[in-house]
C-alpha cells in the first residue's frame, strides 16, 4: 500500500541516504553559514512596514477628507492604545451633516490587528444590534447600530489595507503572509470606525448607502495619505 521503494541493493540505499546528508550540507553552506557569519539572523532583521512613520502620525493628525471640514481632532486612549477621534461636518451642509471617525493606526511594524472592535465598543459603552457585513469591490465593512443612553449611531468598521479592507483580522493575516513571502515586507493596516448620528433607535437600513459611500471615501483618502509608498 505504501509507495515506498525498498532498495534491496545496500549500495544504492546508502547512496540515497548520503544524498539527504548532502542536501542538509547544502542548506548549511548556502543559507545557515552566510546568515550566521556574514548577514543577520532572520529574527534579528524582521521585515518592516515601509510607510510606518506616515501611518503612525495619523493618530496625531487624523485624516483630511475632501468635502468635509474638521471640527475637532483628539488623541485618546482606548484599551491602552492610542486612537485618533475626529468630528467632521459636511462642507456644503448636505446630508449626512455629521460624521465621527475613529482611527487606530498601526504603531510598530510588528503590531497586528487584534481586538480593536471590542476595545472600541467597550470604551464607548455601546449597546449594539443589526450587525451586517456589507461589501463593495475589495472593501468589506461591518455595520451595526450602536447606542448609549443619550445617542444612537450607525457604525461602519474595517481594517484599512493598501488595497481594500476587511473587518476580520484573519483577512489581514493571510495577505500579510503573502506580503512577507513576495515582498519581504509587512502589510500595513489602520483600524477605522465611522459613526453617523441617527434618530434614537431608528431604522439603520436607509443609512447603508451613506455608510458604504463614506467608507469608500475614507478608504481612498487613507490609501493616498498613508499607504502610498514614499517617493
Amino acid at each position, binding site marked *: 500500500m505504501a509507495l*515506498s521503494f525498498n532498495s534491496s541493493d*545496500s549500495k544504492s540505499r546508502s547512496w540515497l541516504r548520503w544524498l539527504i546528508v548532502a542536501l542538509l550540507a547544502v542548506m548549511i553552506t548556502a543559507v545557515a553559514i552566510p546568515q550566521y557569519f556574514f548577514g543577520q539572523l532572520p529574527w534579528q532583521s524582521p521585515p518592516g512596514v515601509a510607510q510606518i512613520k506616515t501611518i503612525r502620525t495619523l493618530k496625531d493628525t487624523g485624516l483630511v477628507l475632501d468635502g468635509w471640514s474638521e471640527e475637532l481632532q483628539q488623541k485618546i486612549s482606548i484599551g491602552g492604545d492610542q486612537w485618533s477621534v475626529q468630528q467632521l461636518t459636511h462642507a456644503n451642509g448636505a446630508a449626512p451633516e455629521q460624521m465621527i471617525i475613529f482611527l487606530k493606526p498601526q504603531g510598530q511594524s510588528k503590531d497586528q490587528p*487584534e481586538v480593536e472592535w471590542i476595545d472600541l465598543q*467597550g470604551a464607548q*459603552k455601546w449597546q449594539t444590534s443589526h450587525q451586517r457585513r456589507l461589501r463593495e469591490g475589495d472593501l468589506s465593512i461591518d455595520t451595526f447600530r450602536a447606542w448609549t443612553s443619550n445617542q444612537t449611531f450607525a457604525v461602519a468598521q474595517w481594517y484599512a489595507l493598501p488595497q481594500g479592507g476587511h473587518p476580520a483580522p*484573519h483577512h489581514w493575516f493571510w495577505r500579510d503572509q503573502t506580503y512577507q513571502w513576495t515582498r519581504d515586507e509587512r502589510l500595513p493596516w489602520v483600524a477605522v470606525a465611522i459613526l453617523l448620528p441617527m434618530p434614537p433607535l431608528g431604522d439603520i437600513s436607509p443609512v447603508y448607502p451613506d455608510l458604504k459611500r463614506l467608507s469608500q471615501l475614507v478608504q481612498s483618502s487613507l490609501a493616498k495619505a498613508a499607504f502610498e509608498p514614499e517617493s
Partner: protein
Amino acid sequence: MISVPQSKSPRWSIELAVISCVVILYGPLLYHWVWDGWINKGISIQHEYFSHGILGIPLAIKLVWDKRQVWHRLGDSCHWSGIACLLVAFVFYTSGVMDAINLSLPLLLTGLLLCLKGPAGLRLMLFPLVLLIFSTPTQLPYLIEPHILPLQRFIATVAGTILHGFGYDVEVNQIYLSMNGQLVEVAPHCAGLKMLFTSLYMGLVITYWTGIYNSRLRTGIFFVGIILVSVIGNILRNTILTFFHGHSMSEAFHWLHESWGGDVYSAVMLGSLILIVNAIQSHVPVSFATATVAQKNGNQPTVSPIDF
C-alpha cells in the same frame, strides 16, 4: 527485520551526520525560541503560547534517545513523501519568513524519519514528533483568539454573577467587568487560552506516560476534564482579579496577574490534572464494553490502542 551490518561505515554514521546538520541548522533558532521568546518573553504573546516547549522539547529528545535501539533494528527504506517534506522544509527554511522557518523544523524532521526508515520510522518517533509539532511557535493562537469571544463573555458573566452573589456591585458589559468604577477586561489570553494550551499539552504527556491512551473512553473523559478545569479555573481567577482591581488592591492584582501568583495558579491547575488522571484510572472502566459486555461470551473488548 534485521539490518545488514555494514562493515565499512560505523553503525551510527548516517544518524550522527544528520543530527549534526540539524543541530547546526536549528541550534540558533531553538536558542531564540527558548531564551528570547519563552524565558525573556521578548518575541510576542503568540510565541509565549508555546512556552510548554521548554518541557516538551527536552522530553521529546529523551524519548528519541530511549528508542534508539528499536530505531536501529528498523529496516532502511525511503518513502517518497519524505522527500516532499524535505523539499518543502528547504523552501520554508530559505524563505526568511519567521513562521515558515519555525514550521520547517518539524517538516524537516518528518522528512528525515520518512527518508531514513520509511513509515515505520515515522510511527516509531510519532509521539516525540507530536510533542515538537505542538511546541513549534506559529500564529495559530492569533487566528483562534477572535473565535473565543463567546468564552470570554461567558467567563465575564459568570465571574460577575459570583461577585454579585457575594453582594458586590458589579456591572458586566460584553467582556468587561466594572466594579467600583474600575474596569477589568477578560482578554483572550486572560480567558485562559494560554493555560488551556499548556494544560492540553501536559494532558498529552500524561496520557502517554500513564498509558491511558489505550482507552478511548478514559482519554476522552480526561481531555473533557482538562477543558473543564481550565475554564472553571479561569472563572475563579478572573473573579479574584476583578475583586482585587475593584478594591484597588493593585499589589495583589499584579501578584496574581503577572507575578509568581500566576505561576502558583498554573502549578495548581497542572497539579489538578494529575488528580484527575488518578481518579480516572481508579474509577473509570477502560471502555463501556469492558464494563458491560466483557463478561458475556468472550466478546472482544473494543479497546483501540493508539499506536504512538
